[in-house]
């Protein structure tokens, strides 16, 4: 009886490890295979480049149509593709459901009123708008 239980347990462990391994692997490969990982990476770093060089009072409008098109193909709403976490100085770009790319900016400013909007209502002409203001230090 113990022997049988051990064999079942061994097999179960194997199957669980195997499933986890391939799950993580397909999650990673999936984002690369349609180019979304690369697109996210490029947009994240280029937007961070702008933020790092920006000064309080500036506002930006960026064309993010390529990102929106990829997001649209993956079933992700374009409004949810870019998010700025001012607390951790992080920018998150996501063109797939359930995953995204994060990059940090060293410029100690806050990004406010950020939004992704479409000019014509579809993803072909999509813009990312944001404003740069001084860090709101109250309570930090």
């Amino acid at each position, binding site marked *: 009886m113990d022997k049988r239980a051990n064999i079942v347990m061994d097999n179960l462990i194997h199957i669980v490890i195997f499933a986890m391994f391939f799950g993580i692997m397909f999650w990673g490969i999936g984002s690369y295979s349609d180019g979304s990982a*690369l697109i996210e990476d490029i947009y994240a770093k280029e937007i961070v480049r702008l933020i790092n060089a920006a000064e309080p009072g500036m506002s930006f409008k960026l064309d993010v149509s390529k990102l929106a098109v990829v997001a649209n193909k993956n079933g992700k709403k374009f409004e949810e593709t870019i*998010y700025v976490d001012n607390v951790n100085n992080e920018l998150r770009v996501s063109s797939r459901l359930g995953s995204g790319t994060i*990059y940090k900016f060293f410029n100690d400013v806050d990004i406010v009123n950020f939004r992704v909007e479409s000019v014509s209502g579809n993803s072909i002409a999509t813009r990312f708008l944001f404003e740069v203001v001084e860090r709101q230090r109250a309570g930090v």
Partner: protein
Amino acid sequence: MNKKGVLGTGVLYTVYFLMMAVIAIGLYGGLVGYFGTGYDYRKAESRALLDSVRDCIKEQNFDLASLTPEDFYNKCIIAKKVIEDGEHLIYVKDKSGAEFTLGVTDFRNRCFLNVREKNKDYPICSSYGKDVSGEDYILVGSSQNSRRALA
């Protein structure tokens, strides 16, 4: 205690993990071969950080001997949590030899290793001036890479 087959099971586990490693390396190699290693932003980031630090030091005219990290972060509008995340270095030395360092001190060595170009875990650095006595010198480095996360 029945220990029959324990050794065999152990050996099988080794083979099992070896197989997974071979599959992972093969897939990773295929992806890198087809899509490339991604967009390397370390150099651009270190240049941008160097510009910020250099402009700030000129503007504020700091006395490095008495400068505190908090003063530097507040006056230069640079995020402490990013510089001290283990992926950045700011090193400043003035004409009198006074030094000021923030971030990973060891980047002063790792910045000059040949492996830095290919291995993205190593920092790429930008500098201003020369590291000799009697001259101002700034060395700034970044090894930051984007990271994938659940969103």
